[in-house]
């Protein structure tokens, strides 16, 4: 009887021990799995953010360096315009060819404006040249435009700015003429500087293409 009681107790104790082991394993596994999953998600998110950050940074750097190159292209092309502006200054030094140019510019302006009475303005240093070629210019215009009369008043009060002088800052003009209708409403700016501006703008795509091959980056 005593043995029976003891046996029963030991059997029960064994059952409890076995169930303890089972529950131990289950409990431990559940806790570990649940926590590991959370940690895994946490680190995966962190690593993804790291990757995104890396890509954003690289993209920004790439953009910055592209901009640098584009800026350099622009600066170089501007440099060429400035070099041309410098050379433009010496055009008016060759009096013979400059006079012919002035005449042609006047005729061109006359043909553009097609006005019967006009005002012409030039640099103070060019007044003599202009007066010299004025008659020829008028005649050429009248023939080409088929008119028999045109009146041009050469402004000897107000002048275009003088040639560029490094010692004197401010506006300068490399030559050419400005013609306006009598009432001053329509103006044709046929100065060398204005012409350079127009040509430069027109030729810019071609210049860029020649230099940078059209890819532009």
């Amino acid at each position, binding site marked *: 009887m*005593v043995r029976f009681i003891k046996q029963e107790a*030991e059997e029960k104790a064994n059952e409890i021990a076995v169930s303890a082991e089972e*529950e131990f394993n289950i409990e431990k596994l559940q806790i570990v799995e649940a926590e590991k999953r959370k940690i895994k998600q946490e680190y995966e998110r962190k690593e993804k953010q790291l990757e995104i950050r890396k890509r954003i940074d690289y993209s920004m750097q790439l953009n910055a360096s592209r901009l640098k190159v584009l800026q350099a292209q622009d600066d170089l092309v501007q440099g060429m315009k400035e070099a*041309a502006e410098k050379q433009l200054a010496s*055009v008016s030094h060759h009096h013979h060819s400059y006079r012919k140019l002035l005449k042609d*510019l006047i005729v061109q302006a006359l043909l553009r404006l097609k006005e019967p009475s006009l005002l012409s303005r030039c640099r103070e240093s060019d007044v003599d040249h202009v007066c010299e070629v004025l008659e020829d210019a008028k005649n050429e215009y009248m023939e080409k435009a088929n008119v028999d009369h045109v009146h041009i008043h050469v402004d000897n009060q107000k002048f275009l700015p003088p040639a560029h002088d490094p010692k004197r800052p401010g506006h300068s003009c490399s030559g050419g003429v400005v013609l306006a209708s009598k009432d001053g409403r329509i103006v044709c700016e046929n100065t060398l500087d204005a012409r350079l501006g127009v040509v430069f703008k027109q030729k810019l795509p071609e210049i860029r293409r*020649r230099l940078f091959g059209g890819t532009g980056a």
Partner: protein
Amino acid sequence: MEKGQGGIQQLLAAEQEAQQIVAAARAAKSARLKQAKEEAEREVAEYRAQREAEFRKKLADSSGDSGSNVKRLEAETHEKIEHLKQEAAKVSPEVVELLIKYVTTVKN
């Protein structure tokens, strides 16, 4: 009569012992379950440390890459710009001449 009483006492003693055995088993079970929690926590902490170390390494590698990328890009950009400058210097006189020509040529 004595025999009967001795027998009952033996049974009671056995009963007590039995209860103690079962109680001990239950206590051991509790302790084992507590152990489960502790061991689980330790394993989890180890896993976290491992992931953290991996992450740190990725972080270090990444900033190393960034640094070298920046240098590479800067060098490439500098070279591109130098090349552009050379090309421009070569072509500039021609371009300037062309521009001047257009300015000073009038077709009426």
